[in-house]
């Protein structure tokens, strides 16, 4: 009977810790910002920033020195393409360059004087393309449009020269081997579609760690001796503290996680291939790993502001380590190793593959395994550091008690001396 009673009491204590933590989280505005406001608003803002996905009608300037029917055809076709807009005509390169310098255009098409002459003589004609390399996306638009138009015009010239009889023959002359490119999983090549899933997952981890760190900092500063764990009968064992606290964070982030992985993609019509069950199976270990990771980190910082100084700037490197911007296969081994310390690496990879690439749970098994390993390892770490904190606050309490006892003893002795003198 007493075992059951003890268990029950243990649970009650954990529930008390949970309640205290919940109260504190909703009372502290710093924690509130990171637990509620940022996860609610940031995804909306990012989705808004990237909602156009791709760029169209990049302005270019044309220097047409050829002034021929062929050169005008090239310009017309470029202007008609979806990605490029011929915004200006210039007389020479200096003129055109000053337009690039003023950020009015992003590239220059130079059609030399002998362009049409050479083509009519059955020689190779050249068109020079100058790109502003400050932006990769505009560079690609300017270059690829010129490339596509030149190939199409080239095909027309080829058919004229070959003297075929049928349309089918024309096609075979220009392209004996047909090819088809099929972009899958992000067919429009959208920037938001590729980056946002990783950003959403990263926001979950970063806000959790920052929020937990701030909450722990506040707890320390409110405490008389700067201890994380208060002296209270309910805070008497590591298990109760870790269970109570993690339950509180997990409850808040169950809601936030659902909002970020289900509601936000739904609102902004992002790709959503993962089933609810798959998301649940992936998010549980991810959130657990994040919570325990956050609790471990929170014990390492002395003042509450320090967690901000430590965790905010790593967000950007962590985003790169997930492999959305720079391919995962090309991340140097040392950084790969470091990336294994953070739940976001595997969380983002698993989420992208489930949600944007329609993978099954079986396909992301390695990532899920790593997430569970991380959850277990950080649970152990959290228990260890909280055990240390608990011992420390007990030691402080004992020291204080000893001090008070000695003081009382001294006072008693002094008091008795005074009495004798009297």
């Amino acid at each position, binding site marked *: 009977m007493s075992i059951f009673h003890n268990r029950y009491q243990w649970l009650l204590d954990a529930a008390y810790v949970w309640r205290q933590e919940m109260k504190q989280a909703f009372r502290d505005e*710093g924690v509130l910002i990171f637990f509620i406001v940022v996860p609610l608003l940031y995804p909306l803002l990012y989705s808004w920033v990237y909602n156009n996905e791709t760029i169209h009608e*990049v302005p270019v300037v044309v220097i047409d020195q050829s002034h021929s029917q062929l050169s005008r055809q090239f310009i017309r076709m470029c202007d008609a393409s979806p990605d490029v807009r011929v915004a200006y005509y210039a007389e020479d390169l200096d003129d055109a360059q000053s337009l690039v310098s003023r950020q009015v255009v992003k590239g220059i098409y130079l059609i030399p004087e002998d362009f049409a002459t050479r*083509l009519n003589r059955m020689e190779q004609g*050249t068109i020079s*393309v100058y790109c502003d390399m400050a932006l990769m996306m505009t560079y690609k638009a300017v270059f690829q449009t010129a490339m596509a138009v030149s190939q199409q015009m080239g095909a027309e010239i080829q058919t004229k020269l070959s003297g075929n009889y049928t349309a089918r023959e024309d096609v075979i002359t220009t392209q004996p081997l047909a090819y088809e490119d099929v972009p*899958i999983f992000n067919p429009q090549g959208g920037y938001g579609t590729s980056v946002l899933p990783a950003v959403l997952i990263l926001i979950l981890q970063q806000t959790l760690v920052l929020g937990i760190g701030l909450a722990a900092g506040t707890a320390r500063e409110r405490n008389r001796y700067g201890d994380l764990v208060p002296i209270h009968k309910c805070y008497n064992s590591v298990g109760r503290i870790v269970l109570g606290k993690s339950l509180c964070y997990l409850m808040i982030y169950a809601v936030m996680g659902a909002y970020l992985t289900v509601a936000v993609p739904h609102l902004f019509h992002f790709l959503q291939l993962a089933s609810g069950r798959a998301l649940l199976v992936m998010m549980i270990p991810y959130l657990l790993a994040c919570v325990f990771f956050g609790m471990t980190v929170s014990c390492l910082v002395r003042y509450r502001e320090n967690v901000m100084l430590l965790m905010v700037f790593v967000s*950007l490197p962590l985003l790169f380590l997930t492999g*959305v911007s720079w391919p995962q296969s090309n991340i140097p081994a040392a950084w790969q190793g470091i990336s294994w310390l953070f739940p976001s690496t595997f969380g983002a990879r698993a989420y992208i593959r489930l949600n944007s690439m329609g993978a099954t749970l079986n396909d992301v098994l390695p990532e899920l395994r790593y997430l569970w390993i991380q959850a277990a390892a950080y649970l152990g770490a959290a228990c260890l550091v909280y055990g240390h904190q608990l011992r420390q606050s007990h030691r402080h309490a004992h020291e204080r008690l000893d001090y008070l006892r000695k003081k009382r003893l001294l006072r008693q002795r002094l008091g008795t001396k005074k009495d004798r003198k009297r």
Partner: protein
Amino acid sequence: MKYLWQLSSLVKRECKILYKNPIYGFCMVLFPLFTLLFFTSLLHEGVPEDMPVGIVDLDNTSTSRGLVRRLDAFQNSEVVARYSSVAEARRAIQENRIYAFLYIPKGTTEQLLSARRPKVSYYYSLTSLTGGSMVMKDLKTIATLGSAGVGQATMRAKGFTPGQIQAFLQPIRIDLHQIANPWSNYNIYLSAVFVPGIMMLFMFLISAYSLGMELKFDRGKEWIAMADGNAVVALLGKFLPQAVVFLALIFSYEYYIYEVLEFPRLGSVWMIVLLAVLQVFASIGFGIFAFGLMPSLRMSMSVCSLWAMLGFSLAGSAYPVMGMDESIQALSWLFPLRHYYMLYQTTVFNGYPLIDAWFHLVGLVAFTLLPWFVLRKIKNAMLTYVYIP
């Protein structure tokens, strides 16, 4: 003269604070240098090389194997696996083993030789844009070369000269000039924005932090008293030593990327110096302003970090600002990193005259002057506010 004495004693006091609290050393030197090392070593390849791609070759002839061999020889792609069906290859993409695959259906060579125009397909995943587009480029070249190879063989057999063959196969040639970054090197492109961006994040945070610490440890009154109640002198004395440290940090970053890693630049050294000075003072100005608006350590630091993180998106270096909604385009003016990036790419990267980026110069100067609006509020906060944890 009086101001100078006050200033020197304030500077001495600040130096002592910077020296004593290790947080400053971490945030002003170690973390930014770590970031510099991180980005430059992560992207040291410049262009992603040897990305894993797969092959579904159902034809299996010497021609199809030739295509595969040529693909393998390209810089960006490496053929790592062969699959027996498209479904299997797609699963390999979903399991993250390859980024793309080339599908050569059965009978391709036969149809090619009998001029029946077979079709090869390549499938690539664009969930990673950089990787996907690089692999796509290789695969596209292969297919074009495959076509050209057939035409070349036919024409050679008919007795055309190489010049004639080339002029026929590619009548219009594109002569590409990639100004200032001829290798389309991603290290040059990304490190030059993200590393200064992280440094600006730390400048925001440390400015707000150092002001908040005065309040927290109740040294605010002493600090204002040392400047004889003059908030301008007090702020100057406090932030001059920090600015010097940050400038040294930025110059070591510039030295590392331009002298050690040899990033190209067309602008002069003086532009770099001007940009560094503007960067430091604008960021510190923003940090002080944020603290002045909300004289509480946690609120001002939260605002600074959220603002700085948004700045990375709104700087428009990865996804251009011109592609965003108009309201967001206007919003981007409120981010110092946006102005820094525009000034950098116009004057340093491309080497164009400063006058063409005057708007962004004015923007950074405006950020530098922002603390003017909150001078009284900061002084008031230091003299009357009490820190509540």
